[in-house]
C-alpha cells in the first residue's frame, strides 16, 4: 500500500497532464477557428503570461524592484534565434535531430535561450541585489539598456538591421493528420506557459517560496531566522531571467524577425504594468493582467487609433500605472490567488483580509 506521500506524488502529475491535453485541444480549436491575426494574439498572450509570471517572482514575491526584464527576454530571444539560423557553431554541428523531428528543436532552442538568459541574470543580479529599492531599479534599468545596446552593436545577430529568417515550424502531416505550423507554434508556446505557471506555483508553495516572501516582508528578520537573503534574491532573479529567456525564445520563433529596439525600456514597462495590474504577489493575477494587456489594445486601442490617428496606447498605460499606484496599488488581486471566495473578498473588502491562505 503506497504511502500518502507517494500517492500525492502520483496525483501531482494530474495537473500537468490535463494541461497538456487542454493545450493540444486549444491548439486545434484556435487553428481552425480564427484567422492568422487572432492566432498571433494567442501566441502573444502566452508570451506575455510567461513574462508577467517571471517578473512577478522578483518584484511581487521577493519584493525586489527589477525594471530591466526586457533585457533578459532579449538574451533568450537572440540566443534561440541565433541557434536556429546557424546549423553549425565554431565548426561543430549543433543539429542533433533529423529534419523530420525538427518540431522538437524548439524546446531545445527555448532551453538554450532560457539558460543563457539565466546566466545573464546571475551576472547582473549578483552585484546588484545588494542594493536597495531605487538603486536596484536604476541598475536593472541600466543593464537592460546595456544588453540592448550590445545587441545593437553585434553584427553577428544583425545589429541595427535586426535578425531575419528565424525558423519556425512548418505544416506537417503525421499518419494522415495535418498539423499546421500555427498548431505547432502554439503547442510550444502554451506548453511553455503552462510549465512556467506550474513551476512557479509549486515553487511559491514550498520552503523556497516562503523564503522569497520572507525577504519581501522583512529582510532583517529573515536573516535572523537563518535565510541567506542574498542567495534567495539571486535565485529569484536567475529563475525570473530564465523564464524571460524562454518567453523571448517563443517570441523569436513566432515573429521570425528580431530587432533590438523591441527590447527597450518600454517593453520592460509593459511587463511592469501587467504585474502591477494583476497584483504583485498573485500568480493568477498576472495571468489575468497579461491577457487583458494582450487583448485590450487590439479590442479598444487599435480601433481608437484608426479613428483618431493617434497612438494612445502608452498614454493610457502610463495613466493606468499612475492611477493604480495611487488608488489601488495592490492591483486587481493583491497578493491573493484566484478562487471564488477570494474574488469576492478582494473586490468588496479592499486591501487585507483576516484569514489568509497563500
Amino acid at each position: 500500500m503506497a504511502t500518502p506521500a507517494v500517492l500525492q506524488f502520483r496525483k501531482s502529475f494530474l495537473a500537468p497532464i490535463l494541461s497538456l491535453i487542454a493545450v493540444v485541444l486549444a491548439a486545434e480549436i484556435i487553428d481552425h477557428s480564427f484567422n492568422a491575426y487572432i492566432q498571433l494574439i494567442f501566441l502573444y498572450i502566452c508570451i506575455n503570461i510567461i513574462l508577467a509570471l517571471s517578473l512577478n517572482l522578483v518584484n511581487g514575491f521577493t519584493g525586489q524592484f527589477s525594471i530591466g526584464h526586457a533585457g533578459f527576454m532579449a538574451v533568450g530571444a537572440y540566443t534561440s534565434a541565433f541557434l536556429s539560423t546557424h546549423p553549425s557553431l565554431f565548426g561543430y554541428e549543433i543539429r542533433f535531430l533529423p529534419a523530420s523531428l525538427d518540431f522538437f528543436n524548439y524546446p531545445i532552442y527555448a532551453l538554450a535561450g532560457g539558460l543563457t538568459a539565466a546566466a545573464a541574470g546571475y551576472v547582473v543580479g549578483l552585484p546588484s541585489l545588494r542594493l536597495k529599492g531605487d538603486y536596484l531599479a536604476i541598475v536593472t534599468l541600466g543593464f537592460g539598456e546595456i544588453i540592448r545596446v550590445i545587441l545593437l552593436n553585434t553584427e553577428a545577430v544583425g545589429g541595427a538591421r535586426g535578425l531575419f529568417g528565424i525558423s519556425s515550424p512548418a505544416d506537417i502531416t503525421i499518419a494522415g493528420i495535418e498539423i499546421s505550423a500555427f498548431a505547432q507554434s502554439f503547442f510550444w508556446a502554451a506548453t511553455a506557459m503552462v510549465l512556467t505557471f506550474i513551476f512557479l506555483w509549486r515553487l511559491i508553495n514550498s520552503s523556497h517560496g516562503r523564503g522569497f516572501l520572507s525577504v519581501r516582508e522583512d529582510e532583517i528578520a529573515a536573516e535572523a531566522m537563518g535565510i541567506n537573503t542574498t542567495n534567495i534574491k539571486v535565485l529569484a532573479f536567475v529563475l525570473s531571467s530564465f523564464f524571460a529567456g524562454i518567453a523571448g525564445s517563443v517570441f523569436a520563433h513566432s515573429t521570425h524577425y528580431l530587432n533590438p529596439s523591441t527590447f527597450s525600456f518600454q517593453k520592460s514597462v509593459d511587463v511592469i504594468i501587467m504585474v502591477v495590474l494583476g497584483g504583485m504577489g498573485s500568480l493568477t493575477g498576472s495571468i489575468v493582467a497579461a491577457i487583458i494587456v494582450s487583448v485590450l489594445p487590439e479590442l479598444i486601442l487599435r480601433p481608437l487609433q484608426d479613428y483618431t490617428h493617434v497612438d494612445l496606447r502608452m498614454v493610457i498605460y502610463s495613466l493606468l500605472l499612475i492611477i493604480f499606484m495611487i488608488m489601488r496599488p495592490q492591483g486587481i488581486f493583491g497578493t491573493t490567488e484566484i478562487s471564488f471566495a477570494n474574488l469576492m473578498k478582494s473586490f468588496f473588502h479592499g486591501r487585507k483580509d483576516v484569514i489568509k491562505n497563500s
Partner: protein
Amino acid sequence: MQEFVQHLINGISLGSIYALIALGYTMVYGILQLINFAHSEVYMVGAFAAYYTARVLGLDAKPGVLTFITVLVAAMAVCSILGVTIERLAYRPLRKAPKLNSLITAIGVSLLLQYSGQIIFGADPKVFPNILEDASLASFGDVNLRLFDVTILIVGIIFMIALHYLIHYTKTGKAMRAVSNNQVVASLMGINGDKVIAMTFVIGSSLAGVGAVLVGMKYPKIDPLMGMLIGLKAFTAAVLGGIGNLGGAVLGGVLMGVCEEFVVGYLSSTYRDAVAFAILIVILLFRPSGLLGRSQVEKV
C-alpha cells in the same frame, strides 16, 4: 595641450547644464527619498515652453539679452508649475506608501509626459529659436572661447550661487534643510512640510527650465524625447556627487560633462552616451553613496 583646454572648456560648459538639472534630482531625493523620474520630462516641457513663447511673442528673429531673459523666465515659470502639479497630484498621495509605489508612479508620470508630448507637440524635432547670437569671444591659438559657453557658465553660476544663498541664508532654506533631515521632527517644530516640499519642487523644476533654455540655445534641436538621455546623465551626476548633496550635484555635473567631452575627444563619439551608463553602474555597485555622500546605517 590646446585640444585639452578646448575639451575642458566644452566639458565644463556641458557640465554646468548637467549640474543645473542634477540639482533638481538631488533636492527632491534629499527631501522625499524619491527618484523623480519625471524631472527629465519637466525639463523637456521647459524647452518647448521656451520654443512656443518665442514663437508667440515673435521673438524668433530677435536674438538678444531681452529675448534670452524672457524665454528663460517663461521656461522657469512653466517648469515650476508643472513640477508642483506633479508633486501635488502624483507624489503627495503616496507620501506614506512604500517607496516602490512612488517609484512606479514617477516612472508612470515620466512616460505620460513623454508620450503626451509626442501627441501634443508632434514627434518630429523642432528648431529652438535663436535667442542669442553666438560669437567667438576670445581665441588662444586653437582654443576658442565662445559666447554660448560663457553664457552657460555665467548663468549656471548665478543660479547656483542664488540657490546656495537660499539654502543657507534664508528661513525657507533652513526649513528645507530641516525637512530634508527629519520630516517628522521638522513638522513638530512648526514647519509646514507640504509647503517646503512644494517649494523644493518649484526650485528644482525652475533650474531644469534654465537648463532647458541653455541646452536649446546651444543645441537647437528639441523633441519630446529629449529629456531621457540628459535626464539619465544628470541623474548619474547627482548620484556620482552623492545624492541628496547639493554640492555633490554640482561636482558630479561638472565631472560628467568633462568626462563625456574627453571620451568623445580622445576616444570616439560613439561612446558619448555609454559613458554615463558606465559611470552610473560603477558608482552604484562600488560606492552608492557617491563622492560626497555618507553611507547610511540602518537602525534595527
